[in-house]
């Protein structure tokens, strides 16, 4: 597993998607604002706006299952992490700067591909939930013939 490849998933400017399912297996999705890993991807923490992630929080509370995709909007380079949620909490005040910086970076990235920054900044981002998952599987999700192939 190329560590450089994984580290790209922590760069600023990414689009973050989060997938869950309820106890009956009905899937749900929402957009994340930021992603973080402090232990070489043994665990990953994803930050979700409280305003839009009620269903996601409800699902992980019952099933623990979590899927997170980090994508570079400019080149569609994408990686999917799957695992078990080990912590779900409100993001701390000291994490708000990190979350805000990531939203700014994402707005910059989207502006380069034609989405005005003023629009991106209207997206709710705080307060946020922080969901930490133990990473069990990693998949290459970049569009192409290798999309969906497991890389860890």
């Amino acid at each position: 597993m190329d560590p450089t490849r994984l580290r790209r998933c922590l760069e600023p400017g990414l689009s973050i998607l989060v997938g869950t399912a309820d106890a009956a297996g009905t899937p749900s999705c929402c957009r994340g604002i930021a992603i973080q890993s402090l232990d070489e991807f043994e665990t990953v923490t994803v930050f979700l706006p409280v305003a839009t992630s009620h269903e996601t929080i409800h699902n992980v509370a019952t099933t623990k299952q979590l899927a997170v995709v980090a994508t570079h909007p400019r080149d569609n380079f994408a990686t999917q992490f799957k695992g078990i949620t080990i912590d779900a909490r409100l993001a701390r005040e000291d994490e708000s700067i990190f979350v805000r910086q990531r939203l700014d970076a994402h707005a910059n990235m989207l502006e380069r591909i034609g989405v005005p920054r003023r629009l991106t900044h209207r997206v709710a981002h705080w307060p946020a939930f922080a969901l930490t998952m133990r990473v069990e599987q990693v998949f290459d999700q970049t569009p192409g013939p290798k999309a969906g192939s497991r890389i860890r």
Partner: protein
Amino acid sequence: MSVRLSDIRRCFQGVIPSMIATADGRGVPNIIYVSQVYHVDDRHVALSCQFFTKTRRNLDENPVACAEVMDPVTLQAYRLRLKFLRSERSGPLFDTMSLRIEAIASHTGMAGVFRLIAADVFEVSCAEAVSGFLTEAPANTPDGASLDGMRTEMRGLQWVSERINRAAGLESLLCGVLEALEEYFNFSHTAILLHDEANRRLTTIASRGYGESGVGAEVGMGEGLIGTVARERRLLRLTSLEADLRYGRAIRREAEDGRRAIQAEIPLPGLPDAQSVLVIPLTIGDRLVGVIAAEDRDPMRFSEWHEAYLDVLANQIALGIDRMIERCDENADAAVHEAHAHPSSISALVAGPGDDRRVRRLTYYRSDDAIFVDDEYLIRNIPARILWKVLAESTRTGRTEFSNRELRVDTSLGLPPVKDNLESRLILLRQRLQEKCPDLQIVSTGRGRFALRSCAAVEMTER
């Protein structure tokens, strides 16, 4: 808050990629971006199935999904609760979704590698705005045609019809159509390409809004956006070209890693930073007459209303072009006997002693079937042979007036026996001369007749 799918049509234009979440039989979720969510009707959407095999497997085990789409103008997100119904691998829906993907694939040199496997059709059990997604309510930005817009476009239709009916020749018809598209639809970057059945290529015959006219530029059937529309004879509207191209290039990069043979990417004709494209086939029955292409830097420039409306307009334009070509043919016969009677009315092409006119060097490269003027490419194929013939004849006899008819009977030119598009080839030749060698002109002197005018001496070389 529930919404009708038809009220959020902008979300389905692909400007901002959508996402879809599924779960397998054990409830393990999977989430991916999807390149196209297609609005089928108020209760159904279709998703393009290209590479996402895990999503497909999940749907087989657990046929429910959740998609999120986003309005590119307001950035409001909407969640759709979906029930998987079926995969379509042929039929009108598949063809429509496939055209867009094939065009992008061809444009990025990925034809055959990057293609639609199936159109996955879902029933939408619920569609609702994601509450709290935006910190302030989105402004009301109406979509589609306003009454004023429709009135303007009805006037546009009337105006185009009049232009087609009144056009004195094919050239004025083409110019009139492009003018009308700009005046009534604000399409400022447009081109018309005509189909040459003999070599199965399309040649740019008229354009508007570009620094370089591009007249003479050719596209093969199935090549790029225009060639794909021509081959499929179906209209194509891309509203997020840059996003689609990024997606295509990502696939190309991944495929190249796998050492597959990839064709060279075809440069996008016209605007280098076009964000939206509308390409309309001009057909009469199954016969392809040509293609109209419009592009714009605004990703939301072309709406569904334009698509439906211009499809109707295209039929009229196709009929007008075809009728004009037929009319030129009929009148050519009447002109045949007159052509030889006209003596030379211009100065000789060949420079004589004391002649201080500028000398233009024209070289015909037989192996390439192309003419260069002062070492710059001018034209090739049949228009090149026509120019060479009339230059040679004029040099030899001093004759300057010619008829379409005499070109048609000259088998060395290689004109097809039927539907020879002679008039459009002469327009092409005339415009290329205007751009590259304005000292030499092909001037229409009546239907089916033209004259060679020159204010320079011509030096002809054949290699």
